[in-house]
Structures are given as C-alpha cells and as structure tokens.
C-alpha cells in the first residue's frame, strides 16, 4: 500500500529553509523585507513596474527551473502556457464577467491539460529534438491564436475597466496592489519549490537528469515523471499569465505568446543558475532591470538594438565560461 506523507511533514518541508547556509537565509529574509517595503519607499511608476515585472518573471523562472533546472529538459515553449492562461482569464472576465479568482483555476487547468496531452508525446524526444519540438509547439499555438477570430485574432482582447477597485476582479487603480498581489504568488512559488526539491518527485527528477538509465533501473517511470514536472511548470507559468491579463488589461498573441517570452523565461533561469533554488530569482533580478534601463537609456539616445547587444553578450559569456550561471560563480567564490 502506498504510504501517505503526514501533513505535518509536508508543512515542515515547505516552510523549513534549515538546510541553507545562514548567510543565504539572512540574504533571503533581507530581500523579502526589501520587496515588502519597496512600494512605500519608491513612488515612481517606472521603478514600480520594473519591480512587478521582476516578480512576475521570477515566478516564471522558478517554474521553468523545475523542468529545465532540476529536470534538465530544455523546454522552450513556456509562452504558450502563459498565453493560454492569460486568454482564459481575459475571455472569462470580458465575456461572462466571472471573477478573477474563478478564472485562475480555469486558466491553470487549460495550460495543464494541454501540457499533459502534448507532454505525453513530446517526451518521446530528448535533447535538441525535444528543445526544438517545444519551440515549434509554441509557434503553432501563437499562429493559431493570431488566426482565431473568435478570440480576437491579432487584435487581442481588451479587458473592461471596473469603475471601483475590486478584489473580486483584481482590478485596481494603483500599482501598489498589483505589487502585493504578484508578491503573494511569488512567495507561493518559492515555498512550493522549497517543498518540491525535497519531495519524491524532486528526487526522481534529479535522478533522471543525472542518469536516465540508472533512474529507470531503479523503477522510476521516466516519461511519467517528466510529464508531471512539465505540467507543474505549465501551472506556474499559467498563474503568471492570469496575473498578467488583469495587470495589463489587454492581451494579444504578440504580448503573451511571443517566442521571445518563451526564450526569455528559460534564459533568465539559466543566467541566474538553473537547478539551484535562488538561480532564477537572481537571473530575473539582474536581467529585468538591465533590460528596462538599457532600453530606456539607449533607446532614448537613438541606439536601437544596443541594449540587446549588451544583453546577449552577457548570455554568451555566461554560456561559455560558467554554465551554472551567476549562482555557479557565487558558489565558486565561496568555496575558496
């Protein structure tokens, strides 16, 4: 008979960060306090929007880290999950006036079911074949959404503005609410990942990453484990997508299903350090502000494209000299 883990142990695994070195725990708490008080210190809407974007992309990155970092499967099509969930929320709110909190599970369900079906086929593949197949799947979905007139086609969907701020629809007149709203999801994702890395599925996934044949010989179902992880990643991207729909008031295939988004998600986790707890957060912390500031600063001077050149140079250097990302560099320094 299958033993069920007591709730007490699950809670302990979720909330205990005891196996991290003291300095990391202190750093993380300091970071949380900083984010918590951030909207009270900073009032500029540009800086606040960067912070929200950073939290959103950390959420995506934490999710991607599950399949890409712990699982070692280069899944490049996360934008499709973001997009589907964003569309689910946008459609349900706009057409049927359903509250946000009811559209959230619906958005997650759509992405997870799609990932379950496709994942079953996709995980027949490995390595480059898998990576390019996921990329192609995301492209097909984007084309279909552009083509699909019923859901607005290329024009997208504009969400109706509510007259008064409402928690039911999560629509507010100040970005401070959105800040805590996404922060709430972010904390959820961090706690989930903290549980995940100590869970059975987490260990199975890491075993598969290290040696598939050895993992299979231990009785781990390779394909099923990968599909499960793929679905969890999809669910986390979907949460971000639902948030994006009510935050941006507008979704269209170009903003939520773009190839660039798929790649950016994976890239941030990779630059920060895939397969480590803090890697994706560090990656987003570095790249999102860099992206925004360089874009504004250089774009304003007429240097179109210079921001991405600097951006890509960093990626190339990281890929060439420290594949474990920034977290790899930090650990290397610490070991000295």
């Amino acid at each position, binding site marked *: 008979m299958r033993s069920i883990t007591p709730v007490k142990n699950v809670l302990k695994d979720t909330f205990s960060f005891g196996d991290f070195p003291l300095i990391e725990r202190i750093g993380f708490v300091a970071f949380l306090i900083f984010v918590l008080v951030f909207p009270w210190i900073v009032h500029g809407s540009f800086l606040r929007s960067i912070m929200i974007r950073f939290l959103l992309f950390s959420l995506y990155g934490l999710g991607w880290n599950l399949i*890409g970092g712990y699982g*070692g499967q*280069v899944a490049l099509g996360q934008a499709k999950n973001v997009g589907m969930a964003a569309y689910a929320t946008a459609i349900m709110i706009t057409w049927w006036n359903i509250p946000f909190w009811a559209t959230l599970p619906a958005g997650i369900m759509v992405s997870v079911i799609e990932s379950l079906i496709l994942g079953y*086929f*996709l995980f*027949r*593949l490995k*390595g*480059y*074949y898998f*990576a*390019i*197949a996921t*990329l*192609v*799947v995301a*492209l*097909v979905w984007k*084309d*279909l959404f*552009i*083509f699909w007139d019923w859901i607005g086609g290329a024009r997208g969907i504009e969400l109706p503005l509510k007259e008064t701020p409402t928690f039911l629809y999560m629509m507010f007149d100040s970005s401070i609410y959105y800040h805590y709203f996404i922060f709430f999801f972010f904390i959820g994702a961090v706690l989930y990942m903290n549980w995940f890395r100590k869970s059975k599925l987490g260990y199975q996934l890491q075993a598969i990453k290290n040696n598939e044949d050895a993992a299979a010989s231990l009785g781990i179902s390779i394909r099923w484990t990968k599909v499960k992880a793929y679905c969890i990643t999809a669910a986390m991207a979907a949460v971000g997508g639902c948030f994006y729909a009510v935050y941006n008031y507008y979704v269209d295939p170009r903003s939520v299903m773009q*190839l660039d988004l798929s*790649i950016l998600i*994976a*890239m941030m986790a*990779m630059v920060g350090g*895939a397969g480590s707890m803090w890697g994706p957060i560090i990656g987003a912390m570095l790249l999102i502000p860099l992206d925004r500031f360089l874009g504004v600063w250089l774009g304003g001077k007429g*240097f*179109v*494209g*210079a*921001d*991405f*050149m600097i*951006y*890509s*140079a*960093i*990626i*190339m250097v*990281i*890929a*060439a*000299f420290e*594949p474990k990302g920034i977290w790899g560099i930090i650990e290397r320094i610490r070991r000295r």
Partner: protein
Amino acid sequence: MLLTQVIITGILVGFVFAFVALGLTMIFGVMKLINLAHGEFLMIGMYIAFWTSTLLSVDPLITLPLTAVGGFLLGGLSYYFLIRHILRGPTLAQLFGTFGLMLFLRYGAMFIWGVDVRVIKKGILIGKSFSVYGFTVSVSRLVTAAFSLFFFAIIYWMINKTKLGKALRATSMDPIAARYMGINTENMNALAWGMGGAIAGVAGGLLSNFYYINPTVGMLFSVIAFATVVLGGLGSIRGALLAGLIVGLVEALVGQYISIELKFTFLYLLYFFVVVFRPQGLLGWGES
C-alpha cells in the same frame, strides 16, 4: 493547371529552404550542435549583397563570392570566440550560447543598419520571369535552385569522396579517436562552422534577389531550417535536400489552398508529427 503552377513554385522555394538547411545540417553533422544563429548568418549575407549593390552598384550575383567569404569568416570567428568554449558545457549552455550569438547578430544589424525593410531594386535577375507551356517561372528563384543543387553536389562529393571529408566524418563519429589519428579536430570544427556560415552567406546573397531584407528576417529562416533539418534527419545531407523540397511543397500548397496565414503553421505541425512518430527523421540516423 493552378496545381502544377503551385507545385513548380513549391519546388523552387523548397530548394531555397534546402540550401539554408544544408549549412545547418553540416554543422550539426560534425559537432552535434545546433546553431540557432544560422538565420542571422543568412541575414548578414543578405546585407552584404544589399550594400554592395546599393553603394557600389555591383550585381548581387557577382558579390556571391564576397558573401561566401563573409559567411565563412563569420562562422569561423564565431567558432573561435564562442563555440569552442561552450562545447565544454551542458546542452542547455550550448543552446543559450548560440542563442546569445543570434541575438547579438540580429540586434547588431539593427544597431548598425536600422530597422528599415530594404529591397534590392537593380540586378540581372531581379523581377525577371519567363513562361514555359503557360507556367510562370521566376528567373531569380530558378538560379537560386540551381545554385542550391550545385552546392549540395559539391558538399556531398566533398564529404564522401575527399580526404578532408573523411577527416570531417571521423571528427563527427568520435572526436577523441580522430585526434589520436592525427586529425586536428579543432580545425575540423572551425572548418565546419566556416563552411556552414559560407553556405548561409551565399544563400542570403541569392535570396536578396527576391526577398526583403531587415534585421529580423533571419528568425523565420532559422525556424524553417530547424524543421527541415530535423525532418530530413539531423546531420543528413540527402535528407536535408528531400526535406527542403517537402517543406517547400507543403508551404506552397497550404498557402494556395488553405490559408496564406497558416502556411508555416502546417509546416510546424508536419514537423511535430514526424519528429514525434519518427524521431530519426525521414532518412535515418548517422549517415552523412
């Protein structure tokens, strides 16, 4: 009547896709690495043809050797400054290394030449077409197809019949054993990159005769080339030619009979089904 015309167009386009895929499959064949920046090499080739045509009034056809040299240098330099280092890392790092290169070239082109869409207006082949039995054939596409076939023949001969090709194949099969046999695998890898780049450059030079030029044009050709290469079997040269023709036909037929907007979507779907149910591609694994 219309069907035949569509098939002719499809086959001619197919040769172009096969041409682009040839460079990609070469690099993969030798070092088991996918170059995500392949379309950007092509884009640089197009710009070389555009600027020599606009500033020096040289016909794009005459600048082909120049685009080849440009592509070769680009490929070789990329190898020495980047690829050499990322080869040590895991697959993920390799993917992102070439992805970084792709972004760098794309936005570098945007930085230097701006985002404008450019078209070459003057040239021996540009805008010319002739008709046989009532079917229209574009001269520039026909010439591109001929070049494509020519390059396939040359590369096929080189890989299978020459000593250099043998060294390349040895590097592909087992780099360590190849090194013991006195083959400088480092140079072989660089050569594969140079040749892949040169092929992309020439393809770009030919494409500039009938395709618009802008910094983001590479992406579309990259994705089509990935689909083509995997369809044919990664690393297979004959497979790339066959798959290129299939891709061209599918694109033309869907564009004509179903919807012009979905022509690439069907291509991706075709790719997806082939790769899931026959992951080794149409022409098997491991042959060169």
